[in-house]
């Protein structure tokens, strides 16, 4: 089980948290094409490797944060605030 370092509560077990999808998705202008809107709603990067994603400490402080996690090893490489941009990490 992953131990996730919540920025507010410290290290807590994975089952206190919820995965909340890919981070940093920007909404396109509302007059965009159906293809662009569909891509915004549904298409995801889903990389095999480092993934920037949102998590919520649901059964704790209930606050959201961002994380960079490797989807093969589950190693957590960075934890950062919801409003921060994606930091560089060693791959």
């Amino acid at each position: 089980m992953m131990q996730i370092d919540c920025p507010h509560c410290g290290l807590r077990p994975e089952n206190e948290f919820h995965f909340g999808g890919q981070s940093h998705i920007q909404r396109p202008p509302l007059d965009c094409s159906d293809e662009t809107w569909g891509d915004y709603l549904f298409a995801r990067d889903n990389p095999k490797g480092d993934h920037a994603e949102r998590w919520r400490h649901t059964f704790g402080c209930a606050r959201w944060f961002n994380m960079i996690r490797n989807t093969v090893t589950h190693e957590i490489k960075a934890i950062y605030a919801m409003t921060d941009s994606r930091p560089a990490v060693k791959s």
Partner: protein
Amino acid sequence: MSLAIRFNAHMRTRYSAWNLLAASPRHDDWAPAWRDAEPKSHYDVVIIGGGGHGLATAYYLAKNHGVRNVAIVEAGWIGGGNTGRNTSIIRSNYLYPESARLYEHSLRLFEGLSRELNYNIMFSQRGIVTVAHSRHDLDSQSRWANAMRCNDIDAELLDAAQMQELVPRLNVGKDSRFPVLGGFIQRRAGPARHDAVAWGYARGASALGVDIIQNCPVTGFIKKNGRVAGVQTPRGEIGAEKVAIAVAGHSTVLASLAGFRLPVMSYALQAMVSESIKPVLNTVVLSPAVGAYWSQSDKGEIVIGGALDHFPSYAQRGSYGVTQQVLAATVEMFPSFSRLRMLRQWAGIVDVVQDSSPIIGPTPVPGLYINCGWGTGGFKSIPVGGLTLAHVLATGRNHELAEPFQLERFATGRLIDEAAAAGIAH
């Protein structure tokens, strides 16, 4: 001296009682089930992925459409991904007419598959029982079973006494944590032998001239004038008129190599088996509420499947949190299983689409086709996934069963949202 068994004309290829009796005393005159091929420089169709779907696609291309200059390129060994990692349950208990048609066609193909392939896939139609634990479950399962019957698929509602009779080991005590109020059964559902499905299709395809190339990962696509013209591999470039992707959890990895995006996320779906015991469980039992399902294999192992892990993953092991939850539910539902020793636990990486329905058809790259998005239900759809992908590859037109399952639906909004009906929580 090569250890590889070589074909010769006197070897036995057909499995039958006569050939079993007539075989040489040491049974060393059986031909290998398929040829392990070296890549040629060019094919009419290259299929990426030697799992059930890729192998079935090759088989139906050769068998139904006469397209025999076909290669399957597989990164590992055939049937070594999700085809060898699932719990092998075949069912067609879906809600919407589009899905009902698709999965019912697959179930019917499975019913005739042992004969079609001359390979015993051990499909055992012992039924799948879905358990209702609450008034809400009873209501939603009535709707579910009625929807199935409207689509001409067998479904019977069961009361608590019938449940107890069908599954005597189930904890139906008044003070049980998950009380059993009723449920429903699809009697034509049941497990098959997953390896046999892969090997049967591989043998059938190979006999029709398809090249099966193992240990050959695709590292890139060759494009000419905006059209796909082949694949790059560590064993050289392989040219192709058309290329098909059938790689389940790795669909987005291949799509990004080809330069397009998919509405797919990859999650670990885990399963585990116990030691072998005498027959105790005669049907497949599914509890959507606790997120687990149980069956007993022909070898006697209790096969336990769980719900998806909660976060995306390419690690084929599954997270401990879900293992714990599944085993806790198992002990509650079947108290007599509490002292079983577990033998193995593993996970497959499944390709989950937002509407929990597959994608079978062309991609934005001309000449490149895809079969993906089966999520937690890839095994039971192998025959129909192969049949419909082969149809579009050979004819350039979508098979009518696959018409609703196109990538465009995510731009038009015509989703087929099976998430509520797919049997296990997504």
